[in-house]
Every structure is written in C-alpha cells, then in structure tokens.
C-alpha cells in the first residue's frame, strides 16, 4: 500500500472529525456542583434571546446544556446596534476587501455561591437554547427577553417566570408560581398545589390554560376583560362582590367586583388567572 492510499483516508477522517468539531462548537455542556448538597437551591436565569428549559431531577448538581445559533430574523434592537449614530454623523466605514466574520461566540456566565446559582446570556445576535437539569426542590427565577419559550418540568420549588416574546409552559409542578407573558400563552399543569404561598398567572394578551390534578385544593380566581372563561371543574365560579353599601341620604350604592372564584376541593391558597384579552381555561386532570 503506497503512502497516498494511507494518507488520503486519514486526511478525510481528520477533515470529517474537524467538521464534526466545528458543528458541535455551538453546543456546550457544563456540570456545576453545589456548595451545599442537600440544602435549598436558588437558580436565576436571564437570557436575552433564546429559549430556556428546566427539568427537575433527583440529583444534586446543575447540568447545563447550551446550544447557540445565529439569529437570522429581524430585530429592531439589532438594527440600532448595526447602525449606530455618533455625534459627528460620520459615514459608515468601508468594508471593501474585507470578509464578514460570523460571530459564533456565546457569552454565558454561570455563577454559584452557597447554592445560589446565576446563569445569564447577554444581549447578542446569538440565539441561545438552554436546557438545564436542576434538583427538583430548586426555586427558579427565569427572565427571557426575546425568542423562544420557557419550559419547566418536574420542579417542586417556587417559580417566577417572565417571557416577553415566547410562551411559558410548566408541567408536574406544585408552585408557588408567578408567571407573566405579554402576548403569548401560559400553559401550566399542577400535579400538586403549594399551601403556603399564593400563585398568579398573568398574560396581557395571551391565553392562560391550567390543569389541576384531582387532589389539588385551591381558591381559583379568574379575571378577563375581553376574553372568555372555560371551566371543567365541578365547582361553579361565583362573582366576588365588593358590596359596600354607602348610605348617603336616601341613596345606596352597591359596587360589584370583576373577579370570579371557585373553591376547588374545599379551597386553599389563591391561584389567580388574569388576562386582558386572552381566554382562561381551567381543566381537571383525568
């Protein structure tokens, strides 16, 4: 066998390996041990553009998988960055003879101190998809500015979620949960319901859709101004009236509130669902 017949396959293999390496450069994984295993965990995630998925598991480390891709959509903020105005109004610099370098670097900061974990991805033209495995007992706070969705699965700690562009979905949780979206939906499935603190799901224009396990006991409060309310509960929703009878002379005034409530399984902590124009769906798990 001559040298060429040996060298060529090896070169091809090396090139293939190199290309695989390049393709995988956009995905990185990290395993973060906790300072105090077994103790309460607090996780704060802030992503400018991308998606965030958090999955609860029985382990005691934080497993982070970050995948980046170039954002190719329109972005008003990005346009401003590309064409900054300076005080002298100088014309854009010439790029003749230069080639465009696609930035594939992702700045992801991860900090941990005494079981308080902070994960943040700054403003950039990269779309960052985070999949994070966390201890089930973790308390979570997520803020996602643009891009995709926030997804939560199997976490029993408190949840504070804000998504300005995408949906919020959460399943197998017990809360307390405080979630807010602008124009998109919030979909939550409760396997249990926390008895110590109230929960609230608010969407300005999107729908709010919840499913309650059979054993969940809660006071479900609903309020929508232009949407509809659909309920699969056995208990009816009744109006909570703030009836104040102010007798001034011969006049009486009765003030009616805008909130309706149903006590599920005898009632419990408050679970408030609010949307300006979206519909509210309250389902019972089978």
């Amino acid at each position, binding site marked *: 066998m001559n040298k060429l017949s040996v060298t060529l396959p090896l070169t091809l293999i090396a090139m293939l390996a190199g290309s695989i390496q390049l393709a995988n450069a956009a995905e990185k994984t990290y395993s973060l041990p906790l300072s105090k295993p077994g103790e309460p965990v607090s996780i704060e995630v802030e992503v400018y553009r991308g998606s965030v998925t958090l999955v609860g598991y029985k382990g005691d480390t934080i497993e982070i998988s970050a995948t980046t891709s170039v954002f190719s959509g329109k972005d008003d903020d990005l346009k401003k960055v590309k064409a900054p105005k300076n005080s002298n109004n100088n014309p854009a610099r010439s790029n003749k003879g230069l080639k465009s370098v696609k930035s594939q670097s992702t700045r992801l900061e991860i900090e941990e101190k005494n079981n308080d974990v902070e994960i943040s991805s700054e403003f950039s033209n990269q779309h960052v998809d985070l999949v994070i495995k966390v201890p089930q007992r973790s308390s979570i706070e997520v803020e996602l500015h643009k891009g995709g969705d926030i997804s939560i699965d199997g976490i029993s700690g408190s949840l504070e979620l804000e998504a300005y562009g995408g949906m919020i979905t959460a399943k197998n949780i017990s809360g307390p949960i405080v979630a807010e979206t602008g124009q998109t939906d919030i979909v939550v499935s409760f396997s249990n319901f926390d008895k110590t603190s109230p929960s609230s799901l608010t969407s300005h224009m999107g729908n709010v859709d919840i499913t309650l396990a059979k054993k969940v006991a809660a006071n479900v409060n609903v309020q929508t101004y232009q949407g509809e309310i659909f309920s699969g509960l056995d208990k009816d929703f009744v109006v909570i009236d*703030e009836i104040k009878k102010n007798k001034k002379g011969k006049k009486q005034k009765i003030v009616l509130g805008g909130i309706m409530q149903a006590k599920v399984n005898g009632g419990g902590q408050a679970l408030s669902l609010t949307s300006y124009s979206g519909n509210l769906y309250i389902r019972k798990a089978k």
Partner: protein
Amino acid sequence: MTNQEIIDWKIASLADNNSSELSAEMQSHLEKNSQLQEELLFIEQFWTNDVKPLVMPSDRVDANFYQMLSRAQSTQQHSSQQETALPLNNYHSSSKEQTISLMEKIKSWFMPTPLAQFATLTLVFVLGFNLNQAPNNEKNNAAYSGLQEDISSLTTVLAMSMLKKDSASERLSGVAYSRQTDLSNPLLVEQLIELLARDKSTSVRLAIINSLAELKSFGSFEQQLLTMTTKEENLLVQIELCRLLLNYGSVEIKTLLTAQENMHYLQPEVREFIKAQSMISYI
C-alpha cells in the same frame, strides 16, 4: 402608656431602620411588663430574621407565635362559653325562683331522675359561675382585645417583612397578609403604595390594588393614586387603578379622573372600560 403604643413604636423603628430611644415613660412601662419585652424581642427577631424558602423558623419564634395564637384562641373559646352560659343564667334565675329548699335539693340529688340531675348540675354550675362572673368579665374582654391587637400587630409585621422580599411569590404572600389586617397602620399602607409604583411583577401590583380596596378611605394617598393611574403604561394595572378610584375614590377624584385632560393620558382600552363602568346604576 399602653402596650400597643410601644409595639407601634417598635414596628416604626424597624421599618425606618433606625434605633430611636425609648422615652422614659415607655422604658418604665416596658420594665414592668416582661411579657411585652418578650413580644418586642419576638417582633425584632422576626423582622431581622432572613427567612429563606424551605427553611423553617426557629423553635423559639415558632413557640412564641403559636403561644400567642393559642392564648387568643383559648380566650375566645372562654368568652364564647360565657356568652352561651349567660342565657341559661337568665332562664334559670326566673324559673328557679320557686323555692326549692336546700334539703329537698340534696334529697333529689340522692334520688336522681335524669331531668332533676341535669337541673341540679346546671344550677350549681350557674350559681358558682355567677359568683365569679362580674369581676372577671371585663378582665377577659380586655385580655381578648389585647390579644387581638397583638395578633394584628404581628400580622402587620409579617406583611411588611414579606413585602420586602426578592421573590414575587413572597411579596404576593405579604400582600395577602396585609389583607388580614385592617390596614390601619399607615406605614403598611405607605409600603404597599410604594411597591405598587415600582414592583416589576404585574401580579403583585394587581394584588396590591385589590388590597387597597379594603381601605375605608384613601386620604392623602388619593392624589398619588391618580397620578400613578395617568402615568401607568401597564394596561392591566391602569384598568385596575381606574376601577379602584371609580369604586372607592372620593367624588372629587372621580371627577378629576374622568376629566378630559386626564382621560387623554389613559389607554384607549381603559377609556372604553371607564365608559362601561359609568353604566353602573344607582339604586
């Protein structure tokens, strides 16, 4: 000088984060009252204790809190027993004026029929109770009121503490606790309105607006609420602020809100909402 005045001083000093000195009169009152000293210590510990989720309060804080609650509950039960006993007293004092000599009574006790035995037992109970009733009644009512005030103060402390937490669900809990007080503490109301102006969570802000509806009168905060309404950018919050002022505000503030120059600042959906609200009729 009352215990409540000293507790109010303590809450105010903790809220303002200053360690102002007790007056001589307060100091003298406090020195004579070891129970009040324990209560102040409990309030201070609760306020400064950095409670994290899933961490239970210390045994001492727990014991103090539940001791006070159980005293309130037992006093309440004792009071309701007294109220139940009073009608029996009135009934028996009229029916038993027919003479039953002591001997016959003792005889019937030894020859009991069920009815006679019951009547005898009741008479003994009521007579013995009445002998001690009058002087203790006022004392028990005062103790009950005092404990109610203590619990209201503790709930206020709890609410104010929770409202400062970083987590939105804890702040929501703080708002829920504030609804259990009568919002008589101006520091609590001030804190709620401050949070309403700057909290980043729409859910918390909406809950605060619901809580403020419990106020008997907005007083000096009314103008502040109006200003907040006209400058508010969050649609849900602006609507609810309008509802609050329209339902519970003074006539002057409603006139100001619906005046042309202020309506101009409201979002179109809110203006439509106000038009719909104006259809609520007077009886």
